[in-house]
């Protein structure tokens, strides 16, 4: 079990990697296991989720006429 226990640095790395490539089963498992016991990383995860929501809207805002 210990081999799957990652530190915050490694977990944020995986969370961000997940934005650009699919994570493997073990990676997802490790992230989930860490998030369950960490107070700080779930906040980081929510920040990443916000970025994921915000970026397509930023793109639409940028490319549309209302940004003129």
């Amino acid at each position: 079990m210990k081999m799957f226990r990652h530190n915050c640095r490694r977990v944020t790395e995986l969370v961000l990697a997940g934005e650009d490539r699919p994570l493997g089963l073990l990676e997802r498992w490790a992230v989930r296991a860490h998030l369950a016991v960490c107070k700080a990383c779930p906040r980081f995860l929510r920040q990443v989720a916000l970025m994921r929501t915000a970026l397509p809207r930023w793109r639409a805002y940028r490319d549309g006429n209302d940004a003129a």
Partner: protein
Amino acid sequence: MLTLPSRQRYQPMLDFAHSVQALRPQLLRFAQAQLRNAAWAEDAVSETLLAALAKPQAFAGQSQLKTWLVGILKHKLIDQIRRHSREVSATSAEDGEDIDALLFDETGAWREAPAEWVDPEAACGRREFFEVLEVCVDQLPGVQGRVFMMREWLELDSGEICKELGITATNLWVLLHRARLRLQMCLQERWFGQRATVS
């Protein structure tokens, strides 16, 4: 005998050319944000305007002139990236900076825990938020900024970016990882940190 076109015939063309020309500064700003090189940005925008003026009939039926032009610009930007791929992917010292070391200690724990971003849904709908985001993207180091824009604005996938720039997937992920961390730090500092946060 040749007859000159009547004013009624060429006036719409002139109006179209003026409307296109009026969007030039904005297109230039977008091109600069993507390429981070004034000469290449100039070239991409000139090519865009020429293409647009050469086939105004292609615009017919499109709802927004700007959206149509930005669509053309994106293709011209990819051409520029292809043409200058070696310089585009030449990393600076700032690109190489280990941003993780600022955020995490030697054991891999957060030096300072991330804040809870308050009212994120409201932020996402606000013009001011996008303006701050824009500033944060502009502040990314050269190659990080370019690959981030290729991914999130040009909407290229990782494989395409690697191919265009001749970099490995691992290189790209490191660049995107650092870009995303920097953006979150910047948004914390310039937006969410300015508002009430739960610590």
